[in-house]
């Protein structure tokens, strides 16, 4: 009963327009009070300390800062122009640049919004003016943007790891292959769609010369080096994700300096935005830890295990139920909050059902991806739409629909073949 009231209050406050963090904290305090009266608040101090005093969580501000430096130096244009000549030959031409560019940017940023913003600001006005179908351009950018949280480094995965005590390195490793497969699926779809309907993209007559390809490669190399250093150090076991984030910040600063974009103002702006963005994310984790403390105290996770056992719910049915719950909650709640609130409740049931926590981490991140493409809270839809004055949110939504269906299909594929996610961690990290 208490859990229903607590979740009811949480959803009520969220729909009403309360700040998500305070809605979670308020519902958490109310939940604790219902369970054990005001005496349950006695542990708030020590729970607060445990919720924030974390070396692992330091990776979040560091990855945010790395992406902010690259984003504010305007280097996404260089990355885009570097990838473009290699994609010209494919049916759909520059539309593939949206996906590959997003994939590369995803590997140097921890989130989807910066990835979508980095590519959209460059590609949306450019491709629309060249005669590409606006909806397909917007859809490919939105879909490409979601790769930001699947392809490591991923802030969403760090938060999942914090609540489930799983290895961030293993999660980062598990996200890579699904991210690449999903990107290839997107590209395959674009190629087929444009082949069937050539009016969606202009035909590119002139292919890039060897000189142009060489010059383009030079534009991408610093980004690829940064990816190798950041991800290579994690996969190779040389650095923790936090250390890789710090090294990434230095690398991003060097790249900005290399291209003559580094300035005092750029760094101060990046620090300012990182502080508020990190505070926003870390404060959600903080308040969700209070809520998770209440759910642990109530034993709701164990009750769920007993209920599922009695009801003889199969593993597949449970996963499908989780997909529906995330889809519904996604209408009121931001992705990170959803993970922080729901995962601690369902995690004991997942373990009881023998679901691999690393695999589930990838699964849940893709669920959050779907949420980012679903109105009314689809963050990516708004990021892409705000990149151009001529593109409406409705265009982005319509353009995103086929990609949305592909993500759903991919999730079923992931359920059927868990090795898509689990193969790489077993090879690289044992």
């Amino acid at each position: 009963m208490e859990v229903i009231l607590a979740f009811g209050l949480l959803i009520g406050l969220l729909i009403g327009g309360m700040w998500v963090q305070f809605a979670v904290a308020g519902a958490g305090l109310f939940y604790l009070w219902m369970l054990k009266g005001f005496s349950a608040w006695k542990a708030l101090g020590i729970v607060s300390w445990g919720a924030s005093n974390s070396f692992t969580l330091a990776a979040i501000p560091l990855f945010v800062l790395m992406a902010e430096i690259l984003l504010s130096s305007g280097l996404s244009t260089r990355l885009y122009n570097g990838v473009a000549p290699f994609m010209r030959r494919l049916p759909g031409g520059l539309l593939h640049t949206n996906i590959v560019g997003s994939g590369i940017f995803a590997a140097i940023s921890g989130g989807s919004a910066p990835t979508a913003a980095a590519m959209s600001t460059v590609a949306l006005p450019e491709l629309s003016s060249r005669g590409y179908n606006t909806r397909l351009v917007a859809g490919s950018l939105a879909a490409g943007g979601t790769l930001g949280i699947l392809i490591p480094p991923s802030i969403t995965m760090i938060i999942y790891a914090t609540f489930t005590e799983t290895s961030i390195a293993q999660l980062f490793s598990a996200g890579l292959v699904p991210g690449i497969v999903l990107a290839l699926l997107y590209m395959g779809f674009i190629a087929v769609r444009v082949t069937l309907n050539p009016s969606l993209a202009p035909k590119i007559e002139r292919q890039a010369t060897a000189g142009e390809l060489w010059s383009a490669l030079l534009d991408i190399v610093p980004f690829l080096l940064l990816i190798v250093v950041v991800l290579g150090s994690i996969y190779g076991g040389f650095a923790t994700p936090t250390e890789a984030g710090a090294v990434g910040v230095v690398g991003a600063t060097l790249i900005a300096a290399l291209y003559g974009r580094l300035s005092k103002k750029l760094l101060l702006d990046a620090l300012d935005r990182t502080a508020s963005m990190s505070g926003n994310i870390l404060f959600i984790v903080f308040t969700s830890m209070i809520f998770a403390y209440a759910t642990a105290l109530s034993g709701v996770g164990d009750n769920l295990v007993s209920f599922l056992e009695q009801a003889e719910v199969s593993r597949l049915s449970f996963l499908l139920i989780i997909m529906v719950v995330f889809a519904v909650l996604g209408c009121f709640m931001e992705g990170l909050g959803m993970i922080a609130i729901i995962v601690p409740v369902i995690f004991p049931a997942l373990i009881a059902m023998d679901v691999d926590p690393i695999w589930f981490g990838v699964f849940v991140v893709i669920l959050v991806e779907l949420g980012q493409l679903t109105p009314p809270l689809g963050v990516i839809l708004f990021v892409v739409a705000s990149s151009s004055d001529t593109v409406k949110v409705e265009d982005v939504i319509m353009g995103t629909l086929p990609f949305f269906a592909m993500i759903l299909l991919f999730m079923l594929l992931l359920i059927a073949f868990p090795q898509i996610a689990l193969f790489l961690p077993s090879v690289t990290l044992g």
Partner: protein
Amino acid sequence: MKQSANKLEQQKENGPASAGPVFDLLARSVRLLTGAVLVALVILVCSEAFLRGAFNYSLGFAEEVTAYGVVMLTLFGAALALRQGVLFQVNILFDSLPRRAQMVLRCAFYLLALAICVVFIWKTKDLVISSFSRGKFAPTVLQTPLWVPQLLLPSGFVFIALFVVEKLLLSCRNIWAGR
């Protein structure tokens, strides 16, 4: 989110809405502090990674101090995000309400947020006093008296509460001015 992006763009031009120079000064101090902590984190964590990788030597205190930095960034960063109006929020229903109802609801939320801050200030203050009176130390190389970094918790919530008060003041001014 689009609203948040627009807000950030507007703030680049004008800065966030202010209830007075005291709040501007507080915000500037928080920005300075969080910026300094971020830079310190990068230097500290990089140095640790470099020394361990190159010389197989560890500073021994990097993890501990970095974690204290996270405590600071969590609460002071949240205070900054709150003041800049970019804390996550779902506005669909709120935006469809009549203006008067929006004002009342907004004030109610500010008061609730303030009450939550007071609970956390009170409880985290108890933690600091408990650590101080029991002489608790971190079981690390630095053996930091725990009450020192733990002070970040109540002080962070004080800053959050102050910026909630600022929002409340701005709302009250709007109501009085009939806007």
